């Protein structure tokens, strides 16, 4: 009996020792993986326009105190947009998974974008460059602008149990339930590119992307300065906005961002019209032609949410009407936009690196896997492109 008990005890001890040794080996493997992951240098990566692929904004965003009820303020008051512009900064994080801190190498990330577009292609390329450098397995899904399909893809992504999900929400408000679902599944979520309703930020590890409000405000100032320069002494400068597709944050940031900025910065600027014709040059031409007829020579500026199809449509309308005096600024830096800047038609555009956008979310996820501290919001740098510096941004990313 004693002999049998001794044998059982011996076997148990041997088992415990074996498990311990195995656990130690696994831990050593993880440690090695972390060390190797930390050695990966993504700063050498370049985007197609020969800019550094990953550059974080060096400007410190000043976060003002939240008004009691931002919605009660006028839309031209910058603080009316507080919950969208500063989404993520005051997030009360819920159920955020702990970083495994075992290195990014070998991790699997599913990246869900919003839809097919040349911008998305460039964005995905940037994400792939970082994923390749960090030896991350990346799967990219595109719902082609369909919310039901994006919801389906989120479910499928959860089913695949990746190490992280990176998501561009199709809709700022619908993002809340999407983020909750991923969070409930215990999968770390990294939102990027479009700003979401503030509540969605509670469920993600971090949000990365352009400070859309910030850069449109910056562009608005350049725009207003140019209009005032071209129309010295003018008591009123009528302007109009060609808006982004409704729903996402750019719709708000690229119209009410500049509008609210100029309500304080350039009081002579008066908004006379705004419309969202979509991303069809013909429709933009139609809308702008209508404005030119309605407002005549009083119309001094147009701010477009898109520097490609919309900008092309705007200048087509100008050509038909024989107008060359209107100051046009637009968001984005597509090939069409940069060419128009170079030709001297578009006065200024924002530098919005598509590749950098995709790259930054993967880099942030990699940093998280590597156990680094992650800020709740990471912005891309803000730059304004004019005729003076446009050459340094060629060749364009998309």
């Amino acid at each position, binding site marked *: 009996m004693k002999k049998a008990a001794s044998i059982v005890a011996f076997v148990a001890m041997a088992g415990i020792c074996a498990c311990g040794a195995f656990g130690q080996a696994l831990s050593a493997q993880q440690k090695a993986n972390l060390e190797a992951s930390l050695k990966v240098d993504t700063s050498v990566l370049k985007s197609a326009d020969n800019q550094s692929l990953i550059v974080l904004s060096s400007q410190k965003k000043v976060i003002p105190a939240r008004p009691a009820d931002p919605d009660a303020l006028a839309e031209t008051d910058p603080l009316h947009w507080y919950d969208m512009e500063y989404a993520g900064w005051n997030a009360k994080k819920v159920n955020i998974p702990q970083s495994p801190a075992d290195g990014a190498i070998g991790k699997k990330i599913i990246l869900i974008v919003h839809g*097919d577009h040349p911008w998305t292609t460039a964005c995905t390329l940037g994400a792939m460059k970082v994923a390749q450098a960090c030896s991350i397995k990346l*799967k*990219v*899904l*595109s*719902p*082609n602008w*369909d*919310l*039901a*399909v994006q*919801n*389906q*893809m989120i*479910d*499928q992504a*959860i*089913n*695949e149990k990746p190490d992280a999900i990176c998501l561009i929400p*199709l*809709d*700022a*408000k*619908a993002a*809340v*339930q999407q983020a*909750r*679902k991923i969070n409930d599944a215990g999968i770390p979520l990294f939102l990027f590119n479009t700003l979401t*309703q503030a*509540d969605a930020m509670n469920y993600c590890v971090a949000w990365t992307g352009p400070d859309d409000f910030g850069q449109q405000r910056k562009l608005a100032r350049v725009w207003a300065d140019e209009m005032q320069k071209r129309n010295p002494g003018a008591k009123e400068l009528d302007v109009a906005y060609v*808006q982004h597709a*409704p*729903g996402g944050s750019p*719709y708000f940031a690229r119209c009410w961002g500049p509008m609210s900025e100029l309500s304080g910065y350039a009081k002579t600027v008066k908004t006379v019209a705004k419309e*969202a014709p979509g991303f069809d040059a013909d429709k933009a031409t139609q809308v702008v032609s209508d404005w030119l007829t309605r407002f005549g020579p009083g119309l001094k500026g147009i701010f477009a949410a898109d520097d490609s199809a919309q900008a092309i449509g705007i200048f087509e309308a100008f050509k038909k009407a024989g107008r060359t005096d209107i100051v046009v600024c637009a968001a984005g830096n597509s090939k069409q936009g940069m060419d128009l800047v170079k030709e001297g038609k578009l006065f200024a555009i924002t530098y919005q690196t598509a590749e950098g956008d995709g790259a930054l979310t993967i880099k942030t996820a990699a940093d998280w896997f590597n156990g680094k501290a992650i800020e709740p919001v990471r912005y891309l740098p803000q730059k304004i492109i004019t005729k003076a510096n446009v050459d340094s941004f060629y060749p364009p990313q998309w």
Partner: protein
Amino acid sequence: MTTHKKLDRSGALSWVDHNRIYLIFVVALLVMTAFAPKFFNVFNLTTISKTAAMNACVAIGFTIVMICGHLDLSIGTVITLAGVVGLGLKKYVGYEISVPLALCSGALVGLVNGLLVTKVKISSFIVTLGTMTILQGLIYQITGGNSIALSTPDAFSVADFLGHRLIPLVTPRVLITLVLVLLFQFLLSSTRWGRNFYMVGGNKSTAWLGGIEADRQIVVAFVLSGLLAATGGVFFAMESSAATRNMGDNSLMYVLSATIIGGTAMSGGKGGVFRSFVAILALEIIYDGIILFGLGNEVKIFLAGFILAVVVLYEAYASYRHDRVVGQRSELLAELSAAGRGNRSTDAASSRG
């Protein structure tokens, strides 16, 4: 012997023709199970059933309208309208009132469509195209281009309830759809009221001679289409806790394709709700597999178009074949042709002799 073979072949073709949607469904399921990574598991199959739920619900009404020989192009905007009404009014009156109001809004749109088609005698294509455009503008006016989202705990608890799995593959939203599909399949196939839709779509004059009020039947079909599109839309919005300005935009082409693939004739008088439901599931299985393969959206569009093209071509061929043999008795023709061959050989033998 030859006659029997021909009859067998014709019978097999007829069987394949009659059951083609079930065959497409089974083939799609088997192929994806065999090849698509992580396809055949409860979570993914539930994802498929959840994704199919909204459009399957919409397809019920759409199929009934098509059986009547009409089209309802307004279903996509009705989906959005119902979502906007259901979620937009929730904070004022609660879901108990806002959801019925959303359903009523869909039914009302259907009623307007039906009355314009039957009383003003405008083509359903034109009427519903107009309704669609008007509703798009109306929704834009109501929402200002914004989405409507609810981030309150009670809205989240409803969303979680609608999305949670009751039994494998079935969530409450899927259950609602299943009940509706089975109910309308029963009504259409087993009641006089339901069969009247086929009569109206098949031959309006015969329906009239049969004492059926065709106009009333068509109006009912449009009301059902609006009501069921609204049902799909409002429950989808509740589960998403958000109604976006364009949430129903992609449904029209999807439901139209599925209904045709399911065997409902655009000319009316033929089709079935359950078949449309299976077609939606088959398409969803294919789309799901494409995503799991990591293939792009372009592949999805290509495959959807390809399947639709094959089905439409087959329909055209079947129609041509039908027109050729209409009024003929195939076995008699076969006997005559055999007899003709016999006579010719006898003549040939006598001429040689």
